[in-house]
């Protein structure tokens, strides 16, 4: 695993639309926040575009903790993208 690489994990309809449960990526240096990440991922293909078209509703966890879209992703090892939760 590349030291700059990041594990992305997907759940529920985000997972279904992207077609992957997880992947390792290396991010370009200008991707600094959650928001940057969502924007950058959206440009990676139709599946990502479909999953992330309404980026506002996408929930994000950095290393297993909920994170706002404005948060930095510096140092993150695992970022999860998923729809609003419906447990309980």
């Amino acid at each position, binding site marked *: 695993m590349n030291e700059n690489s990041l594990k992305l994990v997907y*759940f*529920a*309809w985000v997972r279904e639309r992207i077609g992957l449960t997880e992947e390792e990526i290396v991010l370009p240096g200008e991707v600094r926040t959650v928001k940057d990440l969502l924007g950058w991922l959206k440009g990676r293909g139709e599946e990502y575009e479909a999953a992330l078209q309404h980026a506002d509703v996408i929930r994000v966890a950095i290393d297993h903790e909920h994170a706002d879209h404005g948060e930095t992703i510096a140092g993150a090892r695992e970022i999860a993208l998923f729809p609003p*939760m419906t*447990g309980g």
Partner: protein
Amino acid sequence: MSAPVVPLIRIQAEDFDTSAEVARLTRGRHDIGAVVTFTGLCRDEGGRLTALELEHYPAMAEAEIARIAEQAMERWPLDGVSVIHRYGRIAPGDNIVLVVTASTHRHAAFDAASFLMDYLKSRAPFWKKEHPKEGGDGGWVDAREDDAIAAKRWQRS
């Protein structure tokens, strides 16, 4: 007198038994006056569903529920907290989630259980997919606006 409360949190496919979980918190204790349990069950939505499929984020679920339980213990004087959340395929009428709170006084137990459920609904990383009776892909259950509002009402104080 009492030892610090360590919440019991379990994420499991198996069912649970409410009486056993109540007994786990109260056994040998003579200072607990009130135990509240909440059980969430799978509904068939007017006969439309054969099951719900619960997906979860294993690496995060337990940690997030532990954070929610810690918040409850900071806000109310609790003698015990248990949260059991199931995943996988769950048939109508079957259990999905159990919350148990124990306290000297009943209002603390009620409020903490209600808080835990509101927070679990909006923060625990679980997602429900419907399995419709007619077969095919049933789609994902939408998050409810009023669950988010219910969670927010605890932020006032």
